[in-house]
């Protein structure tokens, strides 16, 4: 599914008189099966933009097209991994992953077990969210989104609380899914390496009002190696670009 963001504006009421312009004229066309990553300083409106694309936030001006169709609302076609884990505290790990799907369905059961294996949570199927560590909860949330095979997957710092190894593992899992299922990926991250490791295009945002300042094409075959010279070169390029937009701001 392609995603088209057309002159999206979003303001929040800060007080009676003052408005906070969070997104100002954001335009972006994401092709089908593209992998986009978004980086930008904290508070620049990345989460807000994802919520708008997911159809959760309807109070914006502008328009969002998904697969050429005007967005009508949230749904399983647009998967969303939130910045916070947002697990249902009353459901165990496996039930959180299944959510509204029934674990008695053997197909679902199999998939859930597989995902638990993938996110390395074997042995914690029956644990409640309060018994999980920060990173474990985040992995459950990832599994929950992956179970549903969305056409567009929106990921808001999905690996933020994970150690380097689990992180790399899940990045590979994500690339795998992307290749197999042809999911359009939009991933927000603060990790430059992650960004370069994953993206077809890297979007840099500037804050208040949030705008897209740079779009960097990364034309490098997968799997990429972080130690690769080309990788490092692109890293350096992005860093300078990023620094520039930081300075402008």
């Amino acid at each position, binding site marked *: 599914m392609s995603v088209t963001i*057309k*002159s999206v*504006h979003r*303001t929040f009421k800060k007080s009676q008189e003052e408005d906070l312009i969070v997104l100002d*004229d954001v335009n972006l066309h994401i092709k089908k099966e593209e992998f986009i990553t978004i980086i930008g300083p904290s508070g620049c409106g990345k989460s807000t933009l994802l919520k708008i694309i997911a159809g959760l936030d*309807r109070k*914006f*001006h*502008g*328009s969002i097209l998904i697969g050429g169709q*005007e967005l*009508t609302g949230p749904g399983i076609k647009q998967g969303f991994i939130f910045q916070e884990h947002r697990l249902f505290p009353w459901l165990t790990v496996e039930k959180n992953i299944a959510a509204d799907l029934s674990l008695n369905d053997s197909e679902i059961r199999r998939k859930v077990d597989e995902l638990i294996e993938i996110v390395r949570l074997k042995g914690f199927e029956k644990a409640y969210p309060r018994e999980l560590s920060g990173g474990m909860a985040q992995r459950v949330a990832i599994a929950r989104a992956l179970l549903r095979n969305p056409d567009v997957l929106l990921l808001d710092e999905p690996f933020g609380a994970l150690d380097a190894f689990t992180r790399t593992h899940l990045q590979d899992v994500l690339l795998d899914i992307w290749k197999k299922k042809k999911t359009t990926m939009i991933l927000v991250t603060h990790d430059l390496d992650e960004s370069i490791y994953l993206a077809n295009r890297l979007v840099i945002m500037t804050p208040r009002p949030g705008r897209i300042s740079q779009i960097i094409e990364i034309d490098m075959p997968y799997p990429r190696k972080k130690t690769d010279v080309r990788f490092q070169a692109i890293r350096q390029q992005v860093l300078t670009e990023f620094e520039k937009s930081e300075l402008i701001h």
Partner: protein
Amino acid sequence: MSKARAAIVAGPQAAIKKARYSQNNTVWNTLFKRILIGIRGLILPVLILGIWQFVGSFYDVSDTLLPTPAAIFHSFLDLIFTGELWAHLKISIWRAAVGFGLGAGLGLLFGVIVGFSSRSEQVMDPTFQMLRTIPHLAVAPLFILWFGFGELSKVLLIAKGAFFPIYVNAFLGIRGVDSKLFEVARVLEFSRFHLITKLILPAAMPNILLGIRLSLGVAWLGLVVAELMGSSEGIGYMIMDARQFSNTDIVFVGIIIFAVVGKWTDSLVRVLEAKLLKWRDNFNGDDSSR
């Protein structure tokens, strides 16, 4: 969405203008919305009154059983013009207010104490829970014995009723506080006072306000029994007195007063609720934006 689409066609500047325009309109919009909400709330009562009046006018229902709304309204006006209604209402409101203040105050206090410490819960809560299901009517004679016929026993009886909802709600509100925030309070070494004012009360506030609403209702209802005890004024008395002489229209005036004052005080608390809980990020009803 059509608005947004128009904005795209005209470009971003238009979108912003549109936004400004609609903002200028908000005063009217909110006023309009409020009125709409008010009207929606009246649909059911008006419908019921209509059917009632219709049935009363066209079928033969004895006036001593079910007077028509018109007849009740007539009595209502009578009671207002003689000043009687106001006299009854005044004393009843006074009693309910004092009783509520006392009962709710103590309920909140004990709710906080018991919620705060599981030991005091173990000592006190079973007794409170037992007292909770003792009927007003059954203890009224004891209240007369201990406190006489004066205002004291009435107020205390009302307080007894008002105590429990807020007690239970405050208690459970406190027990519902996220232990994660408790850890923060412990790390920051909150004093007991700050623990209560900065953490427990705000966190339990939704429940406490709910308790206040329920307690207000119970206090108000307690009037009926309280004003059976050697009273010769008050809305509860007015109803009972009218009963003796089959003045059913006055009984209904009383019932309606009960309903309206009850609803009105409830609305007051909800206004308070909206103010005190504006920090909450919670569900507001599926179709609230429509």
